[in-house]
């Protein structure tokens, strides 16, 4: 495998006459922390769904972790990790049971499962909460557990879909530290977020608007391309432009 973790070529998705994602070309390196930004309806979610093999592209293609999403969407699922803002936890299972379950779903068995679980537990500091019901955890701990479940099978690419919604500032900072560590170990992390201070922590960001790629580069470059002092300015400029176009 090359150093490219995700590559999209002319990736397009239509729903009826509406084009949700139009001719998207991205190349994301191994170990990169990549931000997907854009207002609601910009095509972020559709892009992620295509990259996870959940939604077939209408045109173009994407290679994720060396696998073509058009050819074998099911193989991709074993190579990626995914965590949404709802964390996907079973609140009536304990921390350990949740990890056991996801480990099993990812096909980990016996010693490899135990070994991986111990690693992830140590990495995320979950060891003292193993027997607590997931439903009784605070938002920050739920987020760590959700991340733990998504990391058990050592994914090549990790998708975090608005991972810090409803989580306190300390936990948000903790998550970003974890993301950096994962990237240093070679995991590619693709994040969507509404918080521009978080987007600024990404290595590179892509700004989407109405299915188009508006700007691509480091956070500073993107801010300049759109014509703002920082990402937050750029984002607001973009959103206002969208609203005007829709009004016209």
């Amino acid at each position, binding site marked *: 495998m090359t150093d490219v973790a995700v590559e999209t070529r002319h990736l397009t998705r239509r729903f009826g006459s509406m084009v949700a994602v139009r001719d998207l070309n991205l190349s994301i390196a191994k170990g990169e922390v990549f931000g997907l930004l854009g207002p609601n309806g910009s095509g972020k979610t559709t892009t992620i769904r295509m990259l*996870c093999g*959940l939604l077939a592209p209408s045109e173009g293609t994407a290679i994720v972790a060396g696998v073509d999403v058009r050819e074998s969407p*099911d193989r991709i*699922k*074993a190579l*990626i990790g*995914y965590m*949404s803002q*709802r*964390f*996907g*936890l*079973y*609140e*009536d*299972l304990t921390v350990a*049971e949740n990890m*056991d*379950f*996801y*480990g*099993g*779903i*990812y*096909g980990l*068995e016996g010693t490899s499962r135990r070994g991986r679980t111990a690693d992830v537990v140590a990495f995320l500091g979950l060891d003292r909460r193993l027997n607590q019901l997931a439903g009784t955890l605070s938002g920050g701990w739920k987020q760590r557990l959700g991340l733990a479940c998504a990391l058990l099978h050592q994914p090549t690419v990790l*998708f975090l879909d608005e991972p810090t919604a409803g989580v306190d500032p300390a936990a948000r900072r903790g998550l970003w530290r974890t993301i950096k560590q994962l990237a240093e170990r070679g995991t590619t992390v693709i994040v969507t977020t509404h918080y521009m201070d978080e987007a600024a922590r990404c290595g590179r960001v892509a700004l989407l608007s109405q299915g188009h790629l508006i700007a691509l580069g480091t956070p500073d470059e993107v801010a300049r391309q759109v014509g703002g002092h920082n990402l937050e300015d750029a984002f607001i400029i973009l959103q206002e432009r969208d609203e005007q176009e829709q009004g016209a």
Partner: protein
Amino acid sequence: MRRFVPMFRKEFIQMRRDRLTLGIMVGVPVIQLLLFGFAIQTDVRHIPTVVFDESRTPTSRDVIADFENTGNFRIVANVDGREALDEWIAKGDAQAGIAIPHDFPRDLARGTTALVQVIVDASDPLSSQAALAAAAGVAQMRNLEILSAAAHRSELPLEARVRPRYNPGLRSPNYIVPGLVGVILTITLVLVTAMAIVRERERGTLEQLIVTPITNTELMLGKIAPYVGVGLVQMTTVLLLGRFVFDVPLTGNVLLLYAIAFVFIVASLALGLFVSTLVRTQQQAMQAAFFFVLPNILLSGFMFPRQAMPAVFQWIGAFLPLTHFLKVLRGILLKGVGVPELWREMAILLAFALVLIALSVRRFHKTLD
């Protein structure tokens, strides 16, 4: 299929911890069994009865005793006038009234027809029918005695000898309890499966599962397979309670019954899966399931005989798997019959299971995409 196992295991842990599910699985069978087994008796006895005996003679008292001896009438009061009798019935303090006119002993002695009036409160059809039949019986017995004495015959010219087969004691529990197995399986399995799947959607875990390598089939099977076990346990509980508490016989091949029950359970689970694709929340799942339960109880022949229903409703009933499973249950448990007598029902149930699986699996897969 190896991902089926963790799914299956998880489902059992959740089942154990969810009070609502546990309540439905354990509570529904026990409560239903007690309610239907003890409370519902279709053979009506001891109807509260008020008597107005105008003649006050030994003969009239004899006739009243005859009524009481049938066991269908329980004399609750003697009144002095026709109006008082009507009032008792109107108030509902009595459901039947026996009025013996002044001329009764005289007519009887003369050989003209002597009248006993029996008034029944027919606002309750079941008990009034029992009263009517019993009253007719009392008069007939008396007539027989008098006529055979007059004809100097000690033997009856004709007798219809009725043998109530398969349930000689005409006991309600023998009829109700086997049916209850089917009703309980229908209610709990459709409801619990639908809720279990909708819960995953509500809590966002379904969204998480579809990005894992688990296939739709593994997901679905792991989700509903535990409830096959639940169904079999429920069925065993009801059969055992029926046997030892209500003395309901287990006449036929119980193994065959379990085999057919398995098919019925699968059909019910498929139906639950189908319901889960139609609703978005657990509450809606409950409402949908209850909407479905009522026709099952009313039209399947569980409580009311299908032969008495208009053709339209018999047709609707024929589209409920429960209708056919009831025939199997009563056939095996009460009549002790087997495959030669029940192959039609078995084929229909199998067809139901296959069609329902095909339908709901397709819909389920669609909702995942």
